[in-house]
């Protein structure tokens, strides 16, 4: 994971998000917010979302987490992750349901679209039949 963050920082992609608009944070709090920032960036990196979109989403997620954080007592990491989940669902990247739509998942997996625009499936439609042992 460190290598991912390191890579993002090296190429100047790791954004330094200023929390609470210039308000001074104690070192512990600052560390917590930095962890939240790293976690969000890592999550988006693992989702393979384009770089610019990643930064936009991360910034928005941290902003939302900050706003919520002032109202509800929760860790910055949890707040940021919750925010990023809802953001991803809002922008159609992700599904909120327990069993997400297969087609949506395949979009995440960058599956090329089928030429006949058919829905991508892991298994074909059931066509049930019987197979029973013959009575002895």
């Amino acid at each position, binding site marked *: 994971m460190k290598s991912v963050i390191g890579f993002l920082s090296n190429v100047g992609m790791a954004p330094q998000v200023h929390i609470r608009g210039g308000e001074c944070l104690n070192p512990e709090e600052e560390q917590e917010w930095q962890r*939240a920032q790293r976690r969000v960036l890592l999550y988006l990196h693992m989702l*393979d979302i384009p770089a610019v979109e990643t930064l936009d989403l991360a910034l928005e997620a941290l902003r939302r987490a900050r706003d919520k954080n002032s109202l509800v007592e929760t860790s910055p990491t949890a707040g940021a*992750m919750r925010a990023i989940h809802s953001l991803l669902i809002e922008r159609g990247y992700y599904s909120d349901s327990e*069993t997400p739509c297969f087609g949506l998942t395949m979009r995440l997996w960058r599956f090329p679209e089928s030429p006949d625009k*058919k829905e991508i*499936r*892991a298994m074909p439609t*059931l066509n049930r039949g019987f197979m029973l042992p013959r009575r002895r």
Partner: protein
Amino acid sequence: MPESSNKTSEIPAKKKDPLRNWERHAKLRRFVLVAILLSSTYAGGYYIADILPGRGNTTLESAIVAVFAILFAWISIGFWEAMAGLFNLVRPFDRFNITRAGPLKVSLDGTEGRTAILMPICNEDVDRVFAGLAATYQSLEGTGQVEQFDFFVLSDSSDPDRWVEEEIAWAETCRSLNSHNHLFYRHRRVNLKRKSGNIADFCRRWGRSYKYMIVMDADSLISGETLVRMVCLMSQHPKTGIIQTVPHPVNRETLVARLQQFSSRLYGPMFNAGLHFMQLGDSHFWGHNAIIRVEPFMEHCGLPELPGKPPRGGYIMSHDFVEAAFMRRGGWEVWFAYELEGSYEEIPPTLLDELKREQRWCSGNIQHIRLLFMRGLFLAHRALFLQGVLSYVASPLWVSFLCLSTAEAITEVFRSPVYFPEGYALFPQWPTWYTQWAHALLYATSIILFTPKLLSMLLVVFRKGHGKSFGGLLRLFFSMIFEVLFAVLFAPVRMLFHTKFVLFSLFGRTVEWIPQKRLDHETGWFDALRFHGFGTFLGLLWGFMLFFYNEAFFWWNIPIIMPLILSVPLSVLTSRGSVGRFFRKLGLFLIPEELETPPVLKLLQKHLEKISESLSRTNLTSKGGFVLAVVDPLINALHRSFLPKERKLLPEIRERRNRLVEKALSNGPQGLNPKEKREILSDPFSMRRLHVQVWETSDKKLSEMWGL
């Protein structure tokens, strides 16, 4: 035709078929084989009785003669089958060769119906499974007929990590081949009846959508052209229910596996042609690398559960022979395409792996004793069951023969000779040991065992142009000599293990189902000692006893005693890839596929390299599939999308699963056992909850445990 076939399944009307009247020919051929077998067995038995000091008149000697007669008949079957194969191969035309009967159509026009290619797997090496599948898919694409086929990976994997890795490999393979909606994946939670149950489950769910199915093993590989050809053959022979191809063993580096590859490639064609000569449309099914007509399979090949406990009762373990017998009982023919090329498999890399597989097969074959008298089966298939049983029971018979002859040899030392066995007589009857007769019997047995090998070599030399496909005439000759030598060395070791397996099966000891090791790996000295220690001890004890009491007999048995004593180093050294490669460098045990690699094998190699690269997309990969499914958002989404839609669970089940999630969150993935991991993996709600909570945690230790 049996009654059931007239009830529901429709056998197509008889038309002028080159395979017509095969039953009449089969009957005649089998009658001749049985006559030859009986006469040669009688001669062998009569001969050994004359060699023995008491002319076979004592109880001990009668037992020796009886056991020898059965064994002589057993080895004679192989010999005469090989001779039939030789006759079949040297004559200009075999009317019943299914690959040549009828027009050689090599393209499908879409009217044949769709074909499903099934790969049932259970905790197999994921890379190899999907590389093989991808190679087969691409080879099929090359024929332009891929639209007529669908691929199914039917997983029975119980290992939670493998389950997730299979899903990832499926997605990666679909993406790289652009094969979505043609390559499907299904994981079965309850592995009822293992492989046969897995196939039956496919038939019940999707069987009606397909006219044919081609069953592959996890290590199978079939070229696209062969797949198309198999479908065409089924289409040309509408009375055929199953066509079995010959899977050629390939891709192995260890010496023991290379020996098997070589012998199968050199001697296989003659024995296979012989099998076909005798069986014709009553052939066997090996469970993979075969095409099956789905509708009659579903109608006739449902396997019953045998009364009693495993291994003698319960579900049928060696299902393939039984399915072929049931297909015939249903009125459908089963053919062996012994000359169809392009069908491959990989064999166990070490002797120990081979023996573990043999234990499963032995247990399954012994179970067939219970099916010998099942109603409605054809005599040919009952004979096949018996042959399968004998292939393992022959070993305890060999052991009995050795024990009896040792007892005879030792008794001979202590027994005072009887010069006048019939009371008063003018001349004494001197005890005589006809060494020259014993030699003659030894030569006769050697001829029966080794002539087919020699003839196979000559066949290759004359048919395929000086054995070039095996590295040249000289190399072929020396390879054969060494192969025979190693076969002699391995025979007593295999005999001892087969005897153990037969006894285990008969006394009801169940066999643990360990997935076959399909990748090259080596046997360690400790493992070898654990497995072969008893054989070594037995060899030493037996050798010492014989040497002490009857030295002459000891020298007669040295080819059996020495391999047993040397079984540990033999097993270790022949499992070494380096030893195998050394022989390859010398040009020994080469097979045609090593000298000219078929395109589908090249594709396999290419995909193997590619898959291992693609799986390393994050450093979580080393943590295993379960962690990947929990942590990696893409894989979590993929896994959840495979699961059935959310159902309302009983409160106690939901509570149990919630407790498991809590346990995973407090103890990390190491705190869960495989069963608990499987339960979490099978519940979409728990998977989502765990994924969210692992990412939301700010606990440093917990984050590390999950690889964050």
